[in-house]
């Protein structure tokens, strides 16, 4: 049910990109090619962290035209549940791991006359894959990339070589910022907009685009909410007849999986809708953190997205 079987891989390289970011390379354990993917796709990396398995989605940044390995750049998040910390501290070349096959929730719309890409910080990773793809297949695009400083701006050199004048950089420490109004009011008809980065930046770009009259179908954003840590809670799973304890640094989905139940998922970031689960009964508060459910569905208290959302209260019964 969890879509596809995991792929056995070996960590073939770990490269320190800068003080916050490491790049991980994965090759198939059996030496073959990894599955084909398109720019914008992500994989879910399985981490055996102590006694529980953590599964976290990361964008693929390597070229879709070369599947001899997969590469993900991961920024260390000291406040997160520990997925990135695990990757930074524990994962070494030669280690055997499991990853999911790629899935793409942030694909290029190839009908576009032009692709306008806006990245903030580590949000650059899907665009590394997409620009590799477009370099090969052709296509009109430009990339606007905001970083804290030249030192913390990952892949400025690679992108500079690849994109030349199509790369526009903005350095926070030099007080440079993107003028979204100007950018979004001067694009030729037929442009598709892609944005990935910190949530406030995504929101600002989306609001500006909508206010400027961009139709929804031309607006694309990568909006993984990372499952956040939270207070422990208990969930009863009515179909399986088990009760699971969800730890502070565990997501509800991970706790369900830890009980041996194969629950559906795709993005593990509250964006794709795959993990949607019916709430049969609860006494307390559902803490929704996804970008999937509509407001009325949330208000109904009948659904929850266990990959990112949590619960606070006495009793929670799920149809799982």
């Amino acid at each position, binding site marked *: 049910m969890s879509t596809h079987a995991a792929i056995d891989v070996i960590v073939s390289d770990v490269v320190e990109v800068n003080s916050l970011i490491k790049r991980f390379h994965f090759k198939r354990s059996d030496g073959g090619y990894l599955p084909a993917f398109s720019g914008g796709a992500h994989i879910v990396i399985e981490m055996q962290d102590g006694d529980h398995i953590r599964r976290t989605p990361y964008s693929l940044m390597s070229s879709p035209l070369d599947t001899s390995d997969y590469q993900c750049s991961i920024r260390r998040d000291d406040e997160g549940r520990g997925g990135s910390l695990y990757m930074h501290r524990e994962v070494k070349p030669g280690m055997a791991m499991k990853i999911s096959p790629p899935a793409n929730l942030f694909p290029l*719309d190839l*009908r*576009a*006359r*032009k692709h306008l890409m806006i990245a903030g910080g580590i949000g650059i990773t899907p665009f590394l894959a997409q620009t590799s793809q477009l370099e090969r297949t052709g296509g009109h695009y430009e990339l606007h990339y905001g970083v804290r400083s030249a030192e913390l701006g990952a892949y400025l050199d690679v992108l500079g070589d690849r994109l030349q004048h199509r790369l526009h950089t903005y350095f926070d420490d030099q007080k440079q910022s993107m003028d979204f109004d100007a950018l*979004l*009011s*001067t*694009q*030729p*008809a*037929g*442009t*598709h907009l892609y944005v990935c980065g910190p949530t406030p930046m995504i929101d600002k770009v989306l609001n500006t685009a909508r206010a*400027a*009259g*961009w*139709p*929804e*179908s*031309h607006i694309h954003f990568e909006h993984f909410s990372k499952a956040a840590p939270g207070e422990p809670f208990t969930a009863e799973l009515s179909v399986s007849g088990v009760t699971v304890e969800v730890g502070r640094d565990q997501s509800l989905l991970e706790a369900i999986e830890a009980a041996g139940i194969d629950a559906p998922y795709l993005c593990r970031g509250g964006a794709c809708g795959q993990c949607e689960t019916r709430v049969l009964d609860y006494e307390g508060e559902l803490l929704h953190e996804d970008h999937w459910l509509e407001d009325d569905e949330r208000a109904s208290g009948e659904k929850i997205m266990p990959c990112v959302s949590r619960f606070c209260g006495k009793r929670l019964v799920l149809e799982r």
Partner: protein
Amino acid sequence: MSTIEYADFKSRPFYGVLKPASSVAHLVVAEGEGAQAVLDLVAKAPADFASKATLLYAEGPYVSDNSNREALRALGFARFHTSATAAAAVPRLNGTLERLRMGTQVYLTGNESALSLFVKVCTDAGLDYQGLQTEHRGSLARRMQCVHCKGITEEVTTQPAECAHCGLLLLVRDHYSRRIGAFQGVNINAEDPSDVPAKEEIFR
């Protein structure tokens, strides 16, 4: 005016009613009786709508009076161009789309054949069809593609209908190709070409 009965066929385009959008600029493309939809649109819009808008109007090939054209001219569009037919409006529409900026709302209205053509020209320019506003006015005549020779026949009113290119007698289906902007026509008497079903004028 004919109204469309929407059968339960997924690919069949669905048209709405034009509503003024709050965008910075507007492009309106109308054919024939679509003139009335433009008048209705402007009547609902803020006073400065026409001053921020371009109107391309295809009068239709056989109009004898120019009352529609003059009524539209009186609306005071910033740019107003007319053509004899929908097909004749295409070069100017292409040129206009080339210079258009994202954030301009596009409105299309006219008979079904013209709408098919206008939507296709816009999507070929990279605009997603979901961002276009459309309203059907006038006849239900269809733009049809012969699935055998791929020729396009405009303004098809009968069922079955002859392909204007290869001459096969075609069943005009509700199956619609957005890429081509046409309903699909499939040979109706392939087994026995001497079996010629009577034509009925149903797309009026």
